[in-house]
Structures are given as C-alpha cells and as structure tokens.
C-alpha cells in the first residue's frame, strides 16, 4: 500500500499536529474565523485588480491608439479619453492588395492547415501511446517531446538549408510542414492525457460486443475525446498563428508572408503609422482570443493534463 504523499501537505490533521503546541498554550488570540476570511477575500480581490491593471494597460492603450486619428496618436500629453473615434486604420488593414490583408489570409491558411494536420496525426498516435504496450514507450515519448526543447532560432538554419534543397523556401507549404512538425509532439502529449482519462473498458466492452479494435476506438472513445481534441487544436492554432521566427526566415515575398512578419514590417521605416500597427495587431489578436474563450474550460484541463475534473 502506498501513502498518498500529495495529500499530506494540506491535510488538516497534519496542520493541527503541526500547531499542536498551541493547544497547550491556550489563551492566545481567539479571533473568529469568519473575520479572518473576510479580510483575506478583500486582499485577494485588491491584489488581482492590481495585476489586471498592470497587464491590461498595454492592450487598452493599443486599442485606443487603433481608434485615434493620426494627430491624437502623437498628442502630448497623451489622451486617455475624450478623443474622437475613427475606424480608418481598420479600413486600411483590409484594403485590397495591402500587405496586411494578404498576411492575414496566409496566416489563416498556414495555421489552419498545420493545426488540422497536427491534430489528425496526433489523435491516433496519442491513442496508441495510451493504450498499447509499446517497447521503449517512455523513451519514445521523451524523444518526441525533446524536439520541442530546441528554440526555433537554433533549428531555423538547418531547416533553411533543407528547405532550399527541397524548393520549399518562400512557400506556404513549407511553413505548414514546419508548424505541423513543431505542433505534433505537443498534440500527442496533450491528447494522450485526454485518452488516458477515458476508461479503456469502453473499448474492451465494445470489442466483446463484436467490434474490431479500431472500430471500438472510433465508435466509443473518439466521441468522448472531442472536447479534448478541440482544446488541443486551439493550442496548436495559437502556436502557428503567433509564430514569428520561422515565418521571418523562411518567407520573404509579400505574397507568402504571414501576418506576424507583415505587421513587424510596418515598424522600421522613417515614419511609423502607429494607428495602422495597432489596428492590425488588434485584428490579429482577436481570433485567438475568441477561440481561447470558447474552449477555456478545456484549456485549463489540458494545461494540468487532466488534473482538473471537467
């Protein structure tokens, strides 16, 4: 029998043992527990509000900048409120033939395709790693994860050389392949956590019912994995959508650039159109925020690898 170490630290018995001395020296302050609780609650809210202000200020500022007229952007002292609102920067972002609208389109194609590929390949792999006794399973899994240890800047040069020989430089296909390769270890690991949570007995029962091994998975386990697959896909999507280093090195022409390098390209000339930069950044951030919001419950479950009950 094993002792559950995890529960000891926060165990009430352990706690009361630890302060057992207090029992002997009774007669010290005996303030009501309710009072303590109220003070703690207030403190927590104050602290969290402070963090929120610090973290959200740049985002709010960016939003404001994207809605200001050119002259208000540079106004001294800076205007927090009471400036006239304009959507001209947003119109510029989407004007036909602009570098940015092509960038967004490319981002959608590359991120969408690589996410779909990584998820499609990841599900069966995760199932196999979860259910079958494979030789050297632990080592294989570690090897798979280790490909994520390298920072992109380190591997981008060999990949560049490789891609040059395969004529993949400056193509969307090249980016899709790189992103898929980088996402796959992650999707396998995360999905394996979700598969582990589905009792293998469903598949055992289905096999005895008369289904084949694979049918049992598709009919019984797969439907239960859908929330997990969705959460995993969003993570993969966020990675490919936000990726900057590979996109900068492996693409150069405006036709193949994805949004991150395209937006970055706006900064660096003699005059910087901060309104346009802010507007494109807002447009760029929005889809990811929406997706993340939709699957937020599963994201938590995914990050903690199933430790949180869904």
């Amino acid at each position: 029998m094993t002792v559950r170490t995890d529960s000891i630290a926060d165990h009430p018995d352990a706690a009361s043992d630890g302060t057992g001395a207090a029992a002997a020296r009774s007669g010290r302050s005996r303030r009501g527990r309710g009072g303590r609780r109220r003070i703690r609650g207030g403190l927590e809210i104050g602290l969290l509000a402070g963090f929120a202000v610090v973290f959200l200020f740049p985002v709010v500022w960016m939003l404001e900048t994207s809605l200001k007229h050119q002259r208000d952007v540079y106004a001294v002292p800076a205007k927090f409120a009471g400036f006239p609102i304009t959507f001209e920067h947003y119109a510029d972002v989407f004007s036909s033939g602009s570098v940015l609208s092509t960038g967004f389109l490319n981002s959608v194609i590359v991120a969408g395709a690589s996410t779909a590929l990584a998820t499609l390949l990841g599900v069966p792999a995760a199932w196999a790693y979860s259910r079958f006794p494979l030789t050297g399973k632990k080592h294989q899994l570690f090897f798979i994860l280790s490909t994520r240890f390298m920072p992109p800047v380190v591997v981008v040069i060999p990949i560049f050389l490789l891609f040059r020989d395969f004529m993949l430089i400056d193509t969307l296909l090249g980016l899709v392949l790189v992103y898929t390769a980088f996402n796959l270890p992650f999707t396998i690991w995360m999905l394996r956590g979700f598969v582990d949570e589905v009792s293998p007995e469903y598949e055992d029962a289905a096999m005895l019912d008369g289904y084949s091994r694979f049918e049992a998975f598709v009919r019984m386990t797969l439907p239960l994995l859908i929330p997990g697959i969705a959460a995993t896909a969003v993570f993969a999507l966020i990675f490919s959508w936000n990726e900057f280093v590979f996109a900068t090195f492996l693409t150069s022409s405006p036709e193949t650039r994805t949004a991150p390098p395209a937006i970055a390209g706006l900064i660096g000339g003699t005059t910087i159109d901060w309104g346009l930069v802010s507007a494109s950044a807002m447009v760029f951030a929005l889809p990811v925020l929406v997706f993340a919001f939709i699957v937020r419950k599963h994201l938590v479950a995914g990050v903690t690898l199933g430790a949180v009950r869904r």
Partner: protein
Amino acid sequence: MTADEEKPPAIRVTGLRKNFGDVAALDGVDLTVPDGSFFALLGPSGAGKTTTLRVMAGLERPDAGTVRLGHLDATAATPAARDLAMVFQSYALYPKQTARQNIASPLRARRLRPEQIAEAVARVSDLLHIERLLDRRPAQMSGGEQQRVALGRALVREPRAFLMDEPLTNLDLKLRVEMRTELTRIHRALGRTFLYVTNDHVEAMSMADRVAVLRDGRIEQVGTPMEIYERPATRWVAGFVGSPQINVLPCRFDAGTGRPGRLAGDGGWTLPAPSWCPEMPDGSPVLIGIRAEDLTLTPTADQPCLEGEVYVVEPLGDRTLVDVRVGEAVVRVKAGPTVTLPAVSGPAGPRLRIGVHLERAHLFDATTERALRA
C-alpha cells in the same frame, strides 16, 4: 440443446501464465468451467482473477497456456470471435448512448436487422425490469440501474458464456444482497454458463455452484461452496472464506498416552486432538483452525474448553461476537444476540470458558499450511 451427448466444458484454460513486468499475475492456472454452471473465481485483489477473465475474453494475451471455448481453440481468437459477453466492474456503459442503444450495441455490431434488435432489447428489459430506463443515459441513472443496463447489454445476446468482473462491487450493501438473488434467478432462467469474478466470499458462497479460490496467480482450491467452507485445503483458504475469520491457533501435537493424543497450545492451553487426527510424530507443530460458530460460551460438562478473558464484545443484532484473549491470541466466538457479559473495562476483562466443537475443527501443517486429514 440435447442432453444425451456429453457436452464439452464451456471454458477450459490450461497452463495460463502472464507476467506484467517482473510480476507474475498468472503462474500456471488450469480451470475447467462446466457448461451451464455458475462458476466463481474468488480471491483477494492481485490474485489474478481479473487477468484470468481478461485472458479468457481475449482482452489480454497470455505468455503461455491455452484457452478452449467449447470445441474451439480460442487462444489466438479476437474478442469478437470468442462469442463471450462480459459485465465490467465499472459497467463501461457508453456515456453518449441511451440505455436502449447500450443494450443494442452488441447486436448492432453484429449487423442484426432493426426489428430483431428491438425484439431482443424488449425481451431483456422485461427480464431485468428496466423498461422505464431505456431512454435514459448512464449519467441519468443510479448505480444500481446502470448495473442492470450493463447486465442487459451482456444478456441481449446468447453468447457461449457470461463473464462478470466484480459486477456488484460498486453497489451499496442492500442492493448487493438483492442483486445476488437476482443473478441467481437469471442464471436459473437462462441455464447458461456464468463465470463470476469476486473478492467477496459471501458472493461466491451464495451464488456459485462451483468456486475456484485464487491466490498469487495460482489456484488454491476448487470445489463446491460447502466443500470450500467445510474442508478448506489450506489455512489460507480457511482464513479467506468465512466471516468472522476463522480462529487459527498454533500448537504442538502431543502423542501422550495414545490415540488420538493432545494439542498443546503456545498460550498454555491444551485440547484433546480430534478423533480423525492423523498419525504424526510427537511434538509436530500444527495449526488448529476453529470457526467462530464452532465455539460456545455455554459448554456442556464434558466438552473440551479453552480459557481466557473477554477482550471485546460486539453486538451485531442477529448475533454477538465475543473476542476472548487466550494466551497471546484473540479468539472470536459467535454467540446468540442476547448473550450477556459483564462490561469490559480496564486492561483485563472477566475470565470465561469457551467450549470447542472439536470434530468440526481443522488442522493444518505448520510449515506447509496444508490441511491435515485422516
């Protein structure tokens, strides 16, 4: 079905071995499950019962040994081809399907026509009284209801045999007692082979017509429930079957003045050896096993007795268990519900004499722990 020709056993496994890493889950298991029997595999957790069942079902591949189902050598067959139905401890009901769909699942997998399926589901839900549950999902059912639906999914076919893996474990006590009767009834109604895995000796005793006791991946004893209770092959089986646990006291055989001799306990007590006690050398260490109901607090004048002091008294309503300290050991005596004893307080309780029904006692070799018989 014709009764005149000799039927092969429903399931027969020989020489099953299975290792998980360094642990031998099955260490040479041979079992013959007669056709139509209610056969219980009894043992503590880790004894290999569930592994045996899973090997039979084809969910686990044995490292060595064969599985025969009727005339079929099924050692390498897929689960679907074995034509067995199984009830899982967790029920394994598909959460996204209604009870009806769950029950129909084995028939859909076998591509039966919808009207055949509907008819079979109706027959099973009538047998199990679950008509009103058919459109619910597992999450909308109580544990007992899920249990019945899981049974339904097994019973909807007419498989070679039904395998049940501790199906009552997750039910509360009252439901468990009721389901015991229910399973017996269903077994009689269907007349088919049930192979039932359990760690609860009461379940095995009350339902099965044959019981195999497993321990550490080996078969310890096979027999009818009463054989196992009344003639346990080893001290371990004697301890595992029966509640309260059998009292086992170490002692030495004293040939003394002739047959049958005496048993001298480590705590200073002596009892005459039972009349059937086999010949053995003077001073042989043996274990005497006496069930709580074979001890009495009201011994007759000439009954052999143990002496000790009351340790704990446990009134259980229909009986009272009295723990008596005899030397270093504590002996549990089953007494009537109205037994009155002075209350135990302080280190030593009142002293009393316990009568022993010696002819019903068991003797075990102290080293091999195997039963000694005449």
